[in-house]
């Protein structure tokens, strides 16, 4: 804890770093009032039977019992696990490889980057719609392949309850990998040319330089990317609504959609808050210890 030790050495602790403290006021307010305050508010109301408007009439753990008895919630969790795992792995791998390729001093870099990034500009509503089309068995990819002569070809992920979540994954990767590539590229561009020179002098092959030197140096960028991808995964909602509305049946439901549907369609705020509290607790259990080690440790300069 460098900050701590340093602070105790200097007498005028409050005035030290005054500019930084003033500059951080918006952040502190947001963290405390909105995120912490809002979370506590949500958790408190998850123990009530609030319907349309938040009301403090407590019912204990009723909302949680009901939540875990709902088949739709269980399916939502399973879907999120599958979607989350593949989404994380593929986004990182594809994003990094593309960035490494883009970093080879290629021509038309601007064009390539824009092509990979443009899906990110399109709203989820429409990304969902286009992919719903491409994956529609009657006039999408399946019908094209069949019309080419392979009549037994079958590819209709959105209408098959067992694999529907992968259909959503395809659209999600198409939409999001461009941004991951840009993040990685920004990271690569921040790396000193001298590192490459040194690696060359030592005769280290290129791929080894990437794996052993560059990637560890890009730790910060990787962490940022990880948080961006992961928070997107936890919050995935619009894409599912646009592509399948959670269907067929309830096969592609996700937790955020459960929260939203129960808050606003079922007008059962308590149930929605209980579900979001579960989501948040899960996230917090994973993130808080890690974040504290990562951001709180004295590893970085003070």
């Amino acid at each position, binding site marked *: 804890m460098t*900050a701590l030790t340093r602070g105790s050495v200097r007498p005028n*602790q409050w005035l030290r770093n005054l*500019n930084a403290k003033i500059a*951080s006021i*918006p*952040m502190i307010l*947001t*963290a405390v009032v*909105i*995120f912490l305050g*809002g*979370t506590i508010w*949500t958790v408190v109301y998850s123990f009530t039977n609030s319907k349309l408007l*938040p009301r403090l009439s407590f019912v204990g753990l009723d909302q949680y019992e009901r939540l875990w008895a709902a088949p739709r919630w269980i399916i939502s969790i399973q879907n999120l696990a599958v979607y989350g795992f593949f989404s994380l792995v593929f986004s990182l791998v594809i994003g990094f490889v593309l960035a490494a390729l883009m970093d080879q001093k290629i021509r038309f870099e*601007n064009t*390539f*980057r*824009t*092509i990979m990034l*443009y899906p*990110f*500009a*399109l*709203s989820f509503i*429409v990304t969902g719609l*286009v992919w719903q089309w*491409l994956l529609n068995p009657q006039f999408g990819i399946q*019908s094209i392949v069949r019309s080419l002569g392979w009549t037994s070809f079958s590819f209709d992920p959105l209408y098959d309850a067992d694999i529907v979540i992968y259909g959503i994954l395809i659209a999600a990767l*198409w939409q999001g990998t461009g941004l991951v590539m840009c*993040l990685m590229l*920004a990271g690569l*561009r*921040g*790396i*000193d040319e*001298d590192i*490459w*020179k040194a690696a*060359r002098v030592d005769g*280290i*092959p*290129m*791929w080894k330089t990437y794996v052993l030197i560059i990637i560890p140096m890009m730790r*910060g960028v990787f*962490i*940022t990317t990880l*948080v961006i991808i992961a*928070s997107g995964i*936890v*919050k995935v909602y619009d894409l599912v609504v646009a592509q399948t509305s959670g269907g067929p049946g309830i096969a592609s439901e996700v937790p*955020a959609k459960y*929260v*939203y549907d129960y808050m606003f369609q079922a007008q059962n705020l308590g149930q929605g808050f209980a579900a*979001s509290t579960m989501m*948040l607790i899960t996230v917090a259990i994973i*993130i*808080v210890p890690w*974040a504290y080690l990562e*951001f709180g440790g004295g590893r970085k*300069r003070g």
Partner: protein
Amino acid sequence: MDNMFASNNTLTAYEKETRRIEAGPSGRKPRRRLSRRNIIVYGTLIVVALYYLLPLYVMIVTSLKGMPEIRVGNIFAPPLEITFEPWVKAWAEACTGLNCDGLSRGFWNSVRITVPSVIISIAVASVNGYALANWRFKGAELFFTILVVGAFIPYQVMIYPIVIVLREMGVYGTLTGLVIVHTIFGMPILTLLFRNYFAGLPEELFKAARVDGAGFWTIYFKIMLPMSLPIFVVAMILQVTGIWNDFLFGVVFTRPEYYPMTVQLNNIVNSVQGVKEYNVNMAATILTGAVPLVVYFVSGRLFVRGIAAGAVKG
């Protein structure tokens, strides 16, 4: 993908690197050589680009067809008869309830929302990130950790608490209120982005500036900003896209005279006047996405290599 480098055994690693560096920071164009490496690099990129472009192709082609043609033909076929009717309709005629003036209705509102929101949220977050990376103070990590966890909260859950906060501040229903909301929700990811980027920059620079007597703001503007263009571009991409495409906050926290373009887009895409007009939907989508796209293309030029390296040497 490791193959791509490993299979390259006709050239030694040394030669490869030489070429790389020769072409490198001084900004010379790469040599025009049809080497295996180039074939692999460009080949992969072109294949990947085709995958990304396929849906766009379908969208453009569909938006240029008439409805009868869409009903019979396959979605990949080029239009037999090109019509710009759907584009005109999406921009100026499509109905939202009783208002039949298409996307044009919300365009300027979207601009009015996006410009201040993007500038303010990036300014605030970059200063946060800079303070966290270079001027850490006691307790900062705690607030920052809360902020990062906050990135995982589904927006919808926060609607009611934020309505209460904005109401108490007296800015509910105003543009200011909406800008504040966008700044708040952009903060976790952006702060993380800047903090990690600044922390990864060479430390000697910061120390040298301190020795020279530069303060908080001088270092930020004179040293950090010029070295961080790529990450500012990423932040801009994130914010322009997120705010331009936002629908929920735009309708929940403002009044109809500020409704952004996405309200019309939602109404065009989600409501069906008899038959779903796919061509109009596609045209509306491309039109709505056009602004972020222009921003990507223009700002992407700031991604040039060598800024960081140059600064280090200078």
